[in-house]
């Protein structure tokens, strides 16, 4: 069965739930970049981000029968799987890094003393974002890294759009302060 280019996500997901491979492959094509970006941002290197992204879609395919359409974007379910994969990944590495430190683990290889322009200093930004607490980090990640709209973030976090915008403003203010402290 062909995938019409205009087919809605809801319809694609419904077909994927019934193990329609073409539909699931279309969802893969649609979201692979987003999932990879999320994974890369979290683990900070290409090889692990690729492994995790690959496994996210395989796990999603294996679990798709249990997915319930509740109106939340399908990609938020994929991102939940991604987060779990990342936690499993670090656990399985048997590293001594605690789960709390996972959030800042990737910043450990930042180059000391390098104070460059913000847009060229990835590790500083990554480290600063990881220092954001709770929903602030999620909103920044979901809006600017994952490309979610405010309404999608609101739906995923079960908050109003206004509340999401307030969180984003506070997150940006915190980032400004954290980055200033780093200098």
């Amino acid at each position, binding site marked *: *069965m*062909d995938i019409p280019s205009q087919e809605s996500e809801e319809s694609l997901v419904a077909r994927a739930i019934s*193990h*329609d*491979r*073409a539909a*699931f*492959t279309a969802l*893969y*094509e649609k979201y*692979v*970049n987003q999932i*990879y*970006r999320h994974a*890369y*941002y979290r683990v900070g290197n290409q090889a692990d*981000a*690729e*492994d995790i*992204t*690959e*496994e996210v*879609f*395989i*796990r999603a*395919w*294996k*679990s798709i*029968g249990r997915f319930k359409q509740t109106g939340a974007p399908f990609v938020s379910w994929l991102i939940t799987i991604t987060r779990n*994969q990342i936690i*499993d*990944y670090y656990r*399985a590495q048997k590293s001594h890094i605690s789960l709390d430190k996972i959030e800042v683990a990737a910043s450990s290889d930042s180059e000391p003393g390098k104070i460059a322009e*913000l*847009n*060229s*200093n*990835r590790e500083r*930004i*990554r480290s600063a*974002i990881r220092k954001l607490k709770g929903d602030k980090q999620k909103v*920044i990640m979901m809006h*600017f*890294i994952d490309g979610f709209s405010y309404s999608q973030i609101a739906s995923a976090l079960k908050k109003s759009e*206004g509340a999401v*915008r*307030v969180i*984003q*403003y506070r997150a*940006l203010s915190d*980032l*400004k302060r954290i*980055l200033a402290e780093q200098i």
Partner: protein
Amino acid sequence: MMKREEILLNCIDDIQSGKRSLEECVTLYPELAAELREFSRIVMAVKSEGVAPSSEFKLRARTRLLQVMNTPEARHNPAGMWLQSLLLRRVGYTITIASLLVASSGITVYASQNSLPQDALYPVKTVTENIQVALTVSSEAKAKLHLKLAERRIQEVVTEAAEGRTVSTSALEAAINQIDNAVQGVNNMPESKAKDLLVQLSQSTAERQADLEQIAKEAPEESQPALKQAIDTMQRGNLIANVASENSALLSTNASVRDEKLESKYFQLEGTLLSIEGQTWTVGSIKLQNVNAPKSVPRVGSDVKLNGIVRGDQIFIGKLEWQDKALEGTKIEGIFSGTNSDSTEWKVGGVPVGKFQNEAPPAPDARIEVKGTAEKRSYTVLEDKTRDDNKSKSRSDESKPETSDSNKSDEKTKTSDNKSAENQSKTTDGRR
């Protein structure tokens, strides 16, 4: 939210979406200039983190996903075993590389040669092939190798089907890629070397298309999209090879098997060559504009049979035969590709052919053969040759009186002229 915060976020969103520039926002809200600049820098820095995966990775991950989807037990395995599989895979990569190193003895590689996509040694086979492609230098040898690998992928699918396995979509996709590579290779080859390969390509794609159509008859629905895609690819490869083997100018247009409109731009035409004026040929009642013909051209007045592909505003004629004996009219075969705005002028295989005043247009993908005369420009649909058997059959059943099985069988062997006689009742101007 306070108004100031709202303004800042709106400006940041507008800057990100390109609705407004930073400077426009600063001009509008000078009291927020410092904060706007700071937030904008932070957001740009955050977004610069957005890296894209490589296309190689995406292809690899997609291929693995397809393999997993094609494994029946994949639906039942507990998801938590992924890491074990990941580690095993990494070990597997190492083993594969080690195997290739050992392959100087030839044992592993030899043993992998008959493996199928689901087999453990299959990765050894494909990695070996990739190395072989990488080590092949000449464009001619490389194109031949791609063709050979496409045939090998289809053969694997044929074997899978014969053994009652689910056909591997990854093998079908690989076959498509290999055919695409082969055609691209021919496109970039000197004309003198391309001819032999085009003949091989024509024969190979026709045979593989037949193989796949046979498999598709029995394959489950879930395999049909991949099979259809592969069949279409073989057909396009065949059309390109058929025309380009007679007229190598087509190769300069980079015709591709991935061009989904290619079939609808292919036609076969029969009629009397009434004139050649520059690049405009008149065959019966049909004008062919911007003709790019093979080197040998028939004399005006001959009855010609030709095929061709329309690329952009040019018509590339491939096979071209002619004879002195006069035909009774003009005949063109191709996929019905639309009408003009008032639905009176039909296009067949991309070529405008004339008016069908009293006949409803066929389905957009219908393969039809039509015949008419130069004087009246009125046409008869001789046969609807739509590839979809069922569709073709139902149309055929609707338009023809019932016949016995033996009669139906006989019809297949009749010439177009005979069919013309049978279908006189369908003449568009009502002639009998």
